């Protein structure tokens, strides 16, 4: 086995997501170059994990900008829901008026038929 055959697996083996096969492990045990690469990958990974808790301070003003944007978005949403509420009320009123009209027409028609039948 050559070092190049193993190169792809070393990066994944460093974080334990890939387990090296028996042949590959034997090669690494005897190869200083692959051992060094594995150690280097582990150092890179360890250092990256240590960056997880680091917070880079944003320039002043970002928080205020974010909150102002949210405020604006909230207001837009409130206006939109108010318009939708009015639209729903208007449509509801229209539907009720139509239903009442239809019911009136039915009552009127049935009364007219009854009068006609009586005469």
């Amino acid at each position, binding site marked *: 086995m050559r*070092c190049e055959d193993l*190169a792809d697996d070393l990066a994944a083996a460093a974080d334990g997501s890939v387990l090296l096969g028996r042949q590959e492990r034997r090669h690494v045990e005897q190869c200083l170059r692959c051992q060094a690469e594995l150690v280097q990958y582990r*150092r*890179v990974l360890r250092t990256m994990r240590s960056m997880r808790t680091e*917070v880079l*301070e944003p*320039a002043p003003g970002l928080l205020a900008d974010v909150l102002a944007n*949210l405020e604006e*978005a909230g207001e837009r949403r409130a206006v939109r829901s108010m318009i939708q509420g009015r639209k729903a009320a208007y449509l509801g009123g229209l539907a009720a008026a139509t239903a009442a009209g239809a019911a009136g027409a039915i009552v009127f028609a049935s009364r007219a038929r009854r009068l006609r039948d009586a005469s």
Partner: protein
Amino acid sequence: MPQDVVADLVVAARDGDREAFDELVRVTYADSYTLALRLTGNEEDARDVVQDAYLRAFRGLKRFRGDAQFSTWMYRITANCANTHLGKRNKHRHEELSESDPVADERPSSDPELQADASALRDRLEIALEALPPKLRQVVVLRDIYDLPHEAIADELGISETAAKVRLHRARKKLREDLFPRRLEEAADAV
């Protein structure tokens, strides 16, 4: 801030309490900005990404089920916004590096033996991350610093899990080669 306090804020914000959402922004925005800066490599872009991320979070808070931490949910939104932002930016830029292009290293060369100090390695790693092409940087930052699973990374970047793994491998390889350059005589020995 303790996780249970954050969880309470999330519940209140989901019920429409604007003050609670503002408080969530206050306690998490520096973290989101740090991720955005690491993903975009540029302060101005990071600010835009953070603005966009909190707007999306505000609009989508009802969909947050609370089975993950709020910070993890914000990381995913931030990653998605950064990806969209970088995509738009690159449309207007023709000199974008392809993933296979070598990354130019304009720093003075240094002896690897002098880099043993962990903080020095960390500083060099920050620079090496910035020098990575954005597509590789996004994946390695989300996986190796923020510990997001491959599936989540693939989802937020709009790529397959296989592509995410390939990019991660390439990124780690580039970082290692950048941080631990082989000496000329070693390279000659290997030929």
